[in-house]
């Protein structure tokens, strides 16, 4: 249905991200394009209507299963058609199968997963398509989780921040846990995966995020069953989690973080993570002097980095100053005293250095 008279010159309702601008067509070119697309449009509309009616009328047979495939090959964003496909799988493909014939069902799902993968390669950020894959895996009792993890690796190699892929990974991990008695070990493997991703690129905020989630789980649910790690680095993390030793963890983690901020001091990812490391989850379990030593050491390290930055650029690093302010505030919470002159100097510098957020610093100073 159209509300406004005449033919549209614009292309679509579709939301486009980063697509190159197309020139406005002249009247003649527009007419030519319409003519050249006419038979395609007719075929598309015919197929689309047929499938939508089949869905409404709950027709579940080979013919409509094929039509659905054909339509999705044409337009894979039609959520209603993916829904119809789910019903076709259940009501047509599974029709003659016993409820517990898991291996036959698995065969059907294997084919479906191949079909989905070909679509995901074309639109790796489509909610509907990832959701369809999850729907299949939930019903398949013989899912191959390792295959899915390997698939995620390939997607992350193309785009290491793809929000859908990271969500999908967490879904897979949750399902793996249902099949496995040692959930802590799975979380620990995931923790190691975040280390790998961060070592590959310290700017991967998605990995830092996942790491924060896993650390909380590992501390709460530890001990993890003892295994012999070959890798000394990972082995020491294992001991720390098993002993719920938050102080040693912080020391180790702050070393990793220090490497990261020295690698790229302008990258915001790790600075958010630092804020979290010096927050309640860790410091509530430490003795006052342990916290103070840790924070003061951290401040010293950041100040040194800022000096290097200042020598290179002739101005302070914004993230260094923000983090020192935050760390000083944590000290104040503990000691009820602070070097106020240093504190307000830092905020004054930030107002000049980061004028877009000047009001934020002013409020912070007033509220303090």
């Amino acid at each position, binding site marked *: *249905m*159209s*509300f*406004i*008279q005449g*033919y*549209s*010159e*614009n*292309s*679509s*309702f*579709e*939301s*486009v*991200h980063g*697509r*190159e*601008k*197309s020139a406005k067509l002249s009247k003649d070119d*527009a007419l030519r*394009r*319409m003519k050249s*697309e006419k038979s395609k*449009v007719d075929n*598309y*509309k015919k197929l*689309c209507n047929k499938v*939508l*009616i089949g*869905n*409404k009328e709950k027709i579940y047979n080979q013919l409509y299963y094929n039509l659905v495939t054909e339509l999705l090959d044409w337009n894979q*964003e*039609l*959520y*209603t058609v993916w*829904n119809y496909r789910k019903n076709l799988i259940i009501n047509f493909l599974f029709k003659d199968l016993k409820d517990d014939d898991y291996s036959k069902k698995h065969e059907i799902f294997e084919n479906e997963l191949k079909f989905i993968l070909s679509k995901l390669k074309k639109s790796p950020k489509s*909610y509907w398509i990832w959701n369809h894959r*999850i*729907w299949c895996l939930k019903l398949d009792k013989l899912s191959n989780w390792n295959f899915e993890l390997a698939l995620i690796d390939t997607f992350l190699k193309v785009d290491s*921040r793809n*929000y859908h892929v*990271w*969500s999908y990974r*967490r879904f897979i991990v949750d399902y793996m846990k249902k099949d496995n008695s040692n959930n802590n070990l799975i979380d620990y493997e995931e923790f190691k995966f975040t280390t790998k991703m961060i070592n590959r690129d310290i*700017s991967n*905020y998605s990995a830092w*995020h996942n790491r*924060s*989630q896993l650390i909380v789980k590992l501390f709460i649910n530890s001990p993890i069953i003892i295994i012999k790690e070959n890798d000394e680095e990972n082995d020491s993390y294992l001991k720390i989690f098993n002993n719920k030793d938050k102080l040693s963890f912080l020391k180790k983690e702050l070393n990793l973080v220090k490497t990261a901020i020295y690698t790229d001091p302008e990258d*915001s*990812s790790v600075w*958010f*993570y630092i*804020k979290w490391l010096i*927050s309640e989850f860790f410091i509530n379990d430490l003795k006052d002097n342990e916290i103070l030593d840790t924070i003061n050491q951290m401040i010293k390290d950041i100040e040194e980095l800022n000096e290097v930055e200042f020598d290179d650029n002739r101005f302070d690093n914004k993230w260094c100053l923000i983090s020192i302010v935050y760390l000083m505030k944590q000290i104040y919470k503990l000691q009820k005293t602070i070097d106020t002159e240093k504190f307000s100097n830092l905020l004054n510098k930030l107002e000049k250095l980061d004028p*877009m*957020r000047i*009001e*934020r610093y002013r409020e912070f100073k007033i509220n303090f």
Partner: protein
Amino acid sequence: MSGELFVEAHVNYVKDLFRHPSYLIHFMADHLKMNALYWGLGTLFLVHHKEEFPRDEVIKFVLTCIDDSNGGFGAAPNHDAHMLSTLSALQVLKMFDAIDILSKEQKTKLVEFIKSMQLSDGSFQGDQFGEVDTRFVYNAIQCLILLEELTPEIADPAVEWIIRCQNFDGCFGMVPGSESHAAQAFTCVGVLAMTNSLDKLPKKELLEWWLSDRQVDNGGLNGRPEKLPDVCYSWWVLSTLAMLGKLNYIDGVKLEKFILDCQDSDKGGISDRKDKEVDVYHTYFGICGLSLLGYKNLERIDPIYCLPYNITATIKKYPYNE
């Protein structure tokens, strides 16, 4: 002040989308039609051109999108009902003051559909196929408010679940455990605001700082750390800051320039970034952002409901005092 808003070009752009489609690509986007109608109509309302859409025909169209099997709204006629299109449909009806056009039976069935999407943990799925997302909680809560049918039995567990979606950085993800995203900040803080529960928001200052850190050097806002800016975050980030009373935490002048620079003066419409292709989604959310920034001659938008204030003034706010 930087450039001007090309109101006339944008009005023409939006109108053109709802002419008879010409090209295949237009026919192929029906699954977004109801959302696009809300974005398009919203744009016209904000620039004071609502009369450009024929009210009766729009309402008639919305009613043809009801999915008879469950009472929800699909994205287009014969498309399945979904929470996303259901909220857009109700927002369109609300803008035309036409919620009461739904018959009593239609309303009852619709309310039942929305409520049936809530899961035992308080979250909502988008349809019966199980996808869960804080977006759908926002959809459901606003739908029930527009229908004046929200109850504590629905709202309280939803709020509890939303708070579980908060992360180490103060912002929110799609489900508990998933990464922070500025658009999810809008849906989550929006649910808290609609249910009058903003006082339950933990780590408020952390969230406010994280949101204001979304502004990058060219004035635009991004949705996650170390990502490119995009006009749509002029809405998702800014509306959330507005709900928290911290609009002053970013540089409005620079943001305004960033949005205005993304306009297409020739075709009309606004793109995600300068010199890219425009679409109705970025057009609407760009103008919404300008409205929050107080740009001249625009209808003021309500950051909680993403509808003009003169519309939300007539919403019966939750909790109901009866």
